[in-house]
């Protein structure tokens, strides 16, 4: 598998603000890579560096082994971009804007263009000014996906789209993946990333704090176990990696670190297991683990609601 995007120690500063602070991001060719983080974490800055619109102050970025600043034009023939906040030309129609962006990249597939316009229910005859936010977003999505680009860079592409269009978007991305294209999907819609992404990188304060497959990341985090045993289970609190243990009338509930799951379940088996439910951590919980302390700090001056 070749590498589509690789950055090492990327730094970008604006005055005293470090928008990117040693960012290491790797995206393999052919995967859909979820790029997660809250507003202001540095997602858009990263993407604009990858597009050669910004020059990093430190570190290296490579796309297909080339420098995105020096070889911007060469690389852009293989890339398509959807910004998070699409601005269109007021006196050009949506259809004209799609053609324009497509042709400037080196052409687009008319059949695919027609198909996408129909699937997204876009009216291409309207002038740029008259589109709603969602419709402007659709124009950029159609322009990007109607191209033959191998690498799609999508910066919160579905902000402003309704749930029906979200479904269409997910279909279209799956199709793009099936065609072998690579997708960098920046988002803060967790369900979208869970549904689409093969691998996920979580960015915080301009750094990648965690990166890997969803399954792998779940392994690194806690699974919640609810169980009923015929005999009262004892000794669980002595096992490693057990948290938030609650026991009442044979009902047991606890969270366990991924690596200690096996030991814990084997231990429960010794007490006559009647029922067992496990909840893998959701992406939401993964995010909360990385950002939970911020929430706690902001939640009414540390009354300890979140721990």
């Amino acid at each position, binding site marked *: 598998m070749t590498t589509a995007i690789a950055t090492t120690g990327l730094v970008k500063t604006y005055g005293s603000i470090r928008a990117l602070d040693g960012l290491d991001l790797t995206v393999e060719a052919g995967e859909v890579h979820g790029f997660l983080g809250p507003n202001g974490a540095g997602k858009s800055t990263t993407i*604009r560096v990858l*597009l*050669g*619109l*910004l*020059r990093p102050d430190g570190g290296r970025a490579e796309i297909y082994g080339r420098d995105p600043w020096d070889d*911007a*034009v*060469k690389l*852009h*023939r293989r*890339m*398509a*971009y959807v*910004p998070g*906040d*699409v*601005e*269109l*030309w*007021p*006196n*050009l*129609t949506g*259809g*004209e804007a*799609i*053609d*324009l*962006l497509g*042709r*400037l*990249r*080196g052409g687009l597939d008319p059949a695919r263009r027609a198909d996408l316009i129909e699937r997204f229910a876009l*009216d*291409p*005859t*309207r*002038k740029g*000014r*008259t589109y709603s936010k969602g419709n402007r977003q659709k124009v*950029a999505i159609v*322009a990007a996906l109607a191209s033959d680009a191998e690498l799609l*860079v999508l910066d919160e592409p579905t902000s402003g789209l309704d749930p029906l269009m979200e479904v269409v978007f997910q279909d279209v991305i799956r199709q793009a993946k099936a065609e072998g294209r690579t997708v960098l999907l920046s988002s803060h819609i967790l369900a979208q990333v869970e549904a689409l992404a093969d691998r996920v990188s979580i960015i915080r304060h301009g750094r990648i704090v965690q990166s890997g497959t969803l399954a792998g990341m779940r392994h690194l985090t806690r699974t919640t176990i609810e169980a009923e045993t015929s005999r009262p289970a004892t000794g669980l609190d002595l096992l490693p990696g057990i948290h938030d243990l609650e026991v009442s009338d044979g009902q047991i509930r606890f969270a366990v670190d991924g690596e200690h799951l096996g030991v814990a379940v084997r231990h429960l088996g010794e007490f006559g297991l009647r029922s067992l439910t496990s909840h893998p951590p959701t992406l939401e919980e993964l995010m909360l683990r990385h950002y939970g302390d911020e929430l706690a700090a902001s939640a009414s001056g540390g009354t300890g609601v979140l721990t």
Partner: protein
Amino acid sequence: MNATMMGREASSSPAARSRGAALDGTGTLIRFILRRERVGLPAWLLGLTALLALFLRALSELTATEEQRQDLYRIMSGSVGAIFGPGYGRDDITAERYVVGVYGLFFFVLAALMSMLLVARHTRAEEQSGRAELIRSGVVGRHASLTAALIVAAGANVLLALLLASTLTAYGHDGSDGLLFGASVGAIGLVFAGITAITAQITEYSRTAVGMAGAVLGVAWAVRAAGDMIRDYGSPLSWLSPLAWANQTRPYVDGRWWPLLLSLGLAAVAVAVGYSLSARRDLGAGLVAARPGAPAAAPWLRSPLAVVFRLQRSSLMWWTVALAASGLLVGGLGDQIADPVGMSERRIEIFGGSVDALLDGYLGMMALFLTVISGIMLVLGLQAVRGEEVEGRADPVLATAISRWAWLGSYLTVLSLGVVGLLLATGVATGLGTVLAGEDVSYVWDMALAFLGHAPGVLVILGVAAMLYGVFPRAIGVTWVLIGYSLFVALFGTVMDLPGWAMNLSPMEHTGRPPLDGTSWSGTAILLAIAVGLMVAGLAAFRRRDLETR
């Protein structure tokens, strides 16, 4: 607080409630507008005041001798005079009568422009950007933003009237007539604030609203000029134009205030129409619905050059039409203005110093003047480039296979070729005007060459703007200073006996003033090299800097 408000509303009559509610929040919005205009509005007001001071100073030199006054009499009478005004006071010309009677037109137009932009920016532009939605979701009445914009515009025009009056007084002219002139200018401002209150309801786009009000201004000028051409001191036709009312106050001749009642009446009617139209439409919508356009781009629209041309097309076209029309007028009136009978030594000097070639001298000066004006289009063009970048439309384009060089280079190419085409068309039109007034056909060719000879100078202005855009994009506005200075040197350089180095600072003064002199080809070549050098520097710097978004 909510409870007390509801209680109060319930106790008042329904009519009072709806009126009060429609204007809720006006005070806050006025403060908000003033906060946003804290640089722009003072710049307009002080700029206009400084312009008046400049005119007063320059013209006291031009009205010093009887010979010069005889000369100015010619400018204030006949068809030429009608361009500027009905010509009150031309029988006994003084500096203040000349400034008010001829240069008054500049102040009318600029006050109208200030008011049009102010009202459109705080009403339609806000709706267009969607910011108005956020404002109106607060405790803000339906008519509050229009009212706030109009109140600020009215205040600005009152302030302008007082500033102009005190400038005239400070230069030793009568204070009450000064106030009358100031009020006449302010009244024009009020009328066009009202007219913009209407156009801003009709269209969904702020620029179109200003354009429509500007068209009204153009028609008002044409009606007044035609009316004043029919009869000295104005015919009934003149009185149909709001610009005539401002002239008919006759400051410094036998001042009278009552024509301004007409201005106030029209302003009031326009504002009332604006309110009633505004009440009939939804937020963000216009009275004219937007039409659908082409579902796909035209086949030729595939290179960055074609795209930039498509985006700049209408601006290029309108500038060319406007300047070519001015050229036709300039040429057509040439014989009359360059008539040596009664012309002062000073003016002969301005027109090149030779009595035998006054027409050529006059045409040469106007060619220079109109070329500098075309520089405005170039600076606005580069500000549009900056707009593309800052508003985020450049991002997706530069994320395609278009290099920075190709993108900015396309703009520079389209603007350069556009201005050369514009100068060619204006030159031909000026020549045609001259020929129509009875001169030799060779003027068409001569004037075309004369205008083209100035192209390198105006391209240096584009070069300066391009260089600033690449190196320090926030400072593009500095180019305006260069345009203002070039205009000043072209019009007053000779009159004010500026030293050579001060003349040479203007990029427009190095290629001679054809058709009087031949074009200096060495000067042309050097200016062209400087222009290209500046543009390349701008391109190279742009390739090296980050793209800036809001």
